[in-house]
């Protein structure tokens, strides 16, 4: 009982234990995290509980929900629930492959500014070009060059989100390198490598985490947009976008066909957006 009971708040100069965990204390952020985890769990575990495969014709065409098909069957008699759950998986795979590649590649490109100004300028020009091309158009171009499919979508997501990571890393480095403590570290002879890893990189990583959440939402949007146009995931593989495309002609008779994947997309993207907002706020607050 020797601890001073009067101090309720920690001293201001003490760094928070973990900013990312702290970011999750708001109601919005928790809601976002719950949504994302729920969708991931459904996508990963859901298919294990099913009796039908996503490409298996297990009933007659377009039956109403019920009788072993909780969401009914599609136009060729496949179980809609199975296709939605596997569709979530397709989107998760695209997201989890593309976003880390974009984050690492984009950040690395953004950091080359440390090596040479000329190289940095060239990289920024490249980012300008990439950002100037609308993401859907970029995806269509890749579908034309490489053939539509998951691979083209992944490349489109990488190219579309990579510049944001690069710009963020570039400005984080520039903002830190000018600071007095960095000058002080240089003066006392701290090796360049150590300055980068100890002082600059943590700031780069902070921004990366929030951007990753934004990019995951972008990935779902790109997959959906391309698949709805018919230039995304190739049938019979299901994805959230292709389910919406296939279900939209039946909105009058079988609304659940399109509305279930639509709901999944909304919840997933909402979850990513809320998480990104919270992480951004936490990074700014520090």
């Amino acid at each position, binding site marked *: 009982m020797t601890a001073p009971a009067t101090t309720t708040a920690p001293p201001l100069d003490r760094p928070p234990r973990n900013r990312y965990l702290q970011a999750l204390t708001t109601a919005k952020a928790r809601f976002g995290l719950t949504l994302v985890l729920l969708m991931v769990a459904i996508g990963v575990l859901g298919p294990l509980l099913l009796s039908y495969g996503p490409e298996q014709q297990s009933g007659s065409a377009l039956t109403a929900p019920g009788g072993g098909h909780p969401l009914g069957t599609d136009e060729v008699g496949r179980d809609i629930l199975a296709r939605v759950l596997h569709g979530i998986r397709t989107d998760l795979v695209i997201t989890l492959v593309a976003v880390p590649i974009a984050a690492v590649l984009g950040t690395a490109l953004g950091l080359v500014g440390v090596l040479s100004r000329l190289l940095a300028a060239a990289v920024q020009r490249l980012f300008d070009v990439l950002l100037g091309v609308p993401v859907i158009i970029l995806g269509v171009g890749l579908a034309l060059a490489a053939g539509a499919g998951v691979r083209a979508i992944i490349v489109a997501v990488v190219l579309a989100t990579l510049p944001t990571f690069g710009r963020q890393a570039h400005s984080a480095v520039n903002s830190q390198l000018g600071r007095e403590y960095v000058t002080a570290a240089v003066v006392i002879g701290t090796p360049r490598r150590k300055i980068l890893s100890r002082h600059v990189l943590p700031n780069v990583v902070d921004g990366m985490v929030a951007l990753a959440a934004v990019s995951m939402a972008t990935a779902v949007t790109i997959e959906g947009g391309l698949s709805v*146009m018919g230039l995304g995931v190739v049938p019979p593989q299901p994805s959230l976008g292709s389910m919406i495309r296939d279900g939209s002609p039946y909105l009058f008779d079988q609304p659940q066909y399109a509305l279930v994947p639509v709901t999944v997309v909304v919840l997933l993207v909402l979850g990513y957006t809320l998480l990104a907002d919270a992480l951004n706020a936490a990074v700014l607050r520090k």
Partner: protein
Amino acid sequence: MAYYLRRLLGVLATLLVVSLLVFSLLQLAPGDPATVVAGPDATPEQIAAVRANLGLDAPFLSRYGGWLGDALRGDLGTSYTLGQPVTDLIGQRLGSTLQLVIAAMLLMGVLSAAAGVVLATGRNGAVRAAVDYLTTLALSVPPFVSSIILIFAFAVIWQVLPSGGEASITADPGGALRFLVLPALALALPNAAVLARLLATDMRRSLQEEYVLTARAKGASRRRIVWRHALPASLNLYIVQLGINFGNLIGGALVVEAIFARAGIGGLLVDAVTTRDYPTAQAVLLLTVAAAILAQMVSEMVIARVDPRVKARAAR
């Protein structure tokens, strides 16, 4: 003047890079375009003849130069599959897409101004919170999702608007507008949400400025201050965002057209990509990217014209 010239040169360089990328898509693509044109039953000799006829056996750079030169003169080639000049094909369908994009831009302006003003100045906490949640939700709803939700609400449940199709704007303006409402709204909503949030932040800052205090001291009403002083001060932001978002509006329009079965350039592009009609696909890709880049340039130049700080910053 130097500022505009430098921007123009930068944009031209970007366009050149983009055109090279678009042209090399054909180079990267698997398979031989000549086999597409010659048809499935063609003999190797026929395919070779088609290849020579299309100029496909010339070196890459000379073909690129020829294509770019023709494109600059307004000749985008002939469709492999439809046999018509690509400019004609685009001309027939561009109007539909432009109607959609323009209608979406108008809706975007109105919706984002209303939501932004409420977010920045709304005194009713419940209303402000509701608008805040609605904009967050709209942010999370890409156009292909908002399309389905709007079709379900207005065409399936209430049955007040058509679920797809279109009418000629010249022959039947009223009908054309009815067909336009849902796709334009679907396209505008996510973009309006982004704009509303930026606008709210910008207006909160404007409302702290001294000229607002002066206006208040002179007895201007709260409404007058918001609509006549703070909102116009955010006009710059509007123009910049419209320029940046124009590309996304076009990209989104292509997706929305697919859902609403509108005969715009989106359908042309999809058909061209699936049938490997390279001249048409390349032309549509080049045009849309060029439009996006040019819109961004124009918006930046307009801003530089009205706000001298932009030029000063660029000169540094």
